[in-house]
């Protein structure tokens, strides 16, 4: 059963003014329980607008969205939706405001209304989940004294601590060094494995998503261009229209296919592409 069901959703910014902009146009898709959905698209394609519908921050201008079986237009339900859908914004380290790491992580938990012992357990668990161990070393640290990558992990941990059913991440690796980047991806993988959470992740860079995603969505100028299982999306001929988004090895395989070679374009990693080309060369 889908945990998120979107039907003909459109969203218009500044409706009725000179600055009116249609950010999303007639989007229909669904997210199944426990799946990893990757959303890819260029700047301004509507990715961030779409995910803000998932926890009721934005309401559709037309169409509908059901999250965990309920319409987000239901005000009562929407006001509690943040507990089930954890949304990590782009550059989440900019939202940090508490004086210590502990308080920052406990903020959402206190808003949920959990007791002190439970908060302590969850804070430590979340720090461990994002790889900030030993936890005791970080609990009383001032977040602003930490590096950008660590602050990003703390911001993500503050959402993970709330144990959402659906975790939505908006470009979680943007602007990080390779180490920070690897840590964030590890965290997402670990979280998925340990908590059986549904993950929706937005990225400019499809490489992050190819390995992790079960299904892939490609948005272009507010329209849903491609949506399907990752391998099928990569194998489809439409990929050629979005040259800049896809990695070089995928483009190479598509070019080979275009020139008449019998090649499988539905590969995820560079290694699989190498194997495919090897197979092709041996065949000749």
């Amino acid at each position, binding site marked *: 059963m889908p945990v998120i069901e979107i039907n003909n959703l459109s969203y218009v*910014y*500044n409706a009725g*003014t*000179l*600055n009116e902009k249609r950010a999303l146009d007639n989007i229909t898709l669904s997210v199944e329980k426990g799946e990893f959905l990757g959303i890819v698209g260029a700047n301004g394609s509507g990715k961030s607008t779409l995910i*803000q519908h998932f*926890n009721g*921050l934005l309401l559709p201008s037309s169409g509908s969205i059901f999250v965990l079986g309920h319409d987000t237009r239901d005000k009562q339900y929407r006001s509690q939706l*943040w*507990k089930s859908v*954890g*949304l990590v*914004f782009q550059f*989440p380290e*900019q*939202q*940090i*405001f508490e004086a210590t790491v502990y308080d920052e992580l406990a*903020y*959402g938990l206190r*808003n*949920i209304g959990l007791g002190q012992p439970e908060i302590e357990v969850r804070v430590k668990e979340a720090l461990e989940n994002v790889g900030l161990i030993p936890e005791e070393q970080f609990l009383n640290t001032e977040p*602003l004294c930490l590096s950008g990558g660590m602050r990003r992990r703390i911001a993500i941990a*503050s*959402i993970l601590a*709330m144990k959402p059913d659906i975790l939505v991440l908006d470009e979680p690796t943007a602007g990080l060094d390779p180490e920070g980047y690897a840590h964030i991806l590890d965290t997402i993988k670990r979280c998925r494995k340990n908590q059986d959470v549904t993950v929706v992740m937005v990225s400019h860079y499809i490489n992050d998503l190819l390995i992790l995603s079960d299904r892939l969505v490609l948005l272009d100028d507010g329209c849903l261009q491609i949506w399907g299982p990752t391998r099928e999306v990569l194998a489809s001929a439409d990929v050629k229209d979005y040259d800049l988004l896809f990695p070089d090895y995928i483009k190479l395989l598509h070019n080979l296919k275009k020139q008449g070679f019998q090649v499988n374009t539905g590969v995820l990693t560079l290694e699989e592409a190498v194997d495919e080309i090897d197979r092709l060369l041996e065949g000749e």
Partner: protein
Amino acid sequence: MKKMKLGSYTPGTSLIHQLDPRTKLLSGLVVIIVILVDNSWPVLVLNTVLIFLVLYLSKISPKSVLHGVKWLWIIFAASFIAHCVCTQGEPWFSLGPLVVSKEGISRGLATFLRLLILYLCSTILTMTTSPMKLAGGLEALFAPLIYLRVPVNQFAMLITIALRFIPTLIEEAETITKAQKSRGAPFASPKKMVRLKTTLAVLIPLVVSSLQRATDLAVAMESRCYTGGPHHSRTKNLCFGRYDLVALAVTVVICISGTIVG
């Protein structure tokens, strides 16, 4: 941004949009001074006609100007009612213990028109003049103060930067608010202290990022040899043309004739 902010610049090519910012600033100043100094009926009526003429020429929809002023209508109405009830004079009619005098209605209407002209003057100015042009206009008008050793150029740069970053800050505040809402920040709590703490959850990150941005901007400006002097150039220089002369003349003539008749 969900809605257009009140008085924010609306790009256009109308006659009023094309006027030099100095013309608009000076004309606005003249009109405001005249209606504040002289509240005779000819002055108010002529200036009201003038301001609605400017609104028509600016091709901004009157709806968007007047619609954004919902809460100001309360002030307009409150001042009108206060004048009607509190001014002593020849009684016109009474509502229980409240006596409405003819003088009261006249003064109430006059105050309403003054407030309306003040509001429209400033709104049309900011809606038809881009922040950069406005800052350029202010700099040019205050230029003579350089001889009194007032750092006009620095003030102009200060205003330009402040105006430039207002939309950025609004956007950032909205994003941080959404991020805190996603962690259950109780913005609508009935308890004042809780609401205060929640506001801090937005203010603190906003101040931190503003300071960071200010530092970055200062470094970027210094690395491009900005020293605060008058030696920076603009991509578009101000140009005081024929229409500006006509516009200023019309404003001055209307204001003076209104004062003479009054």
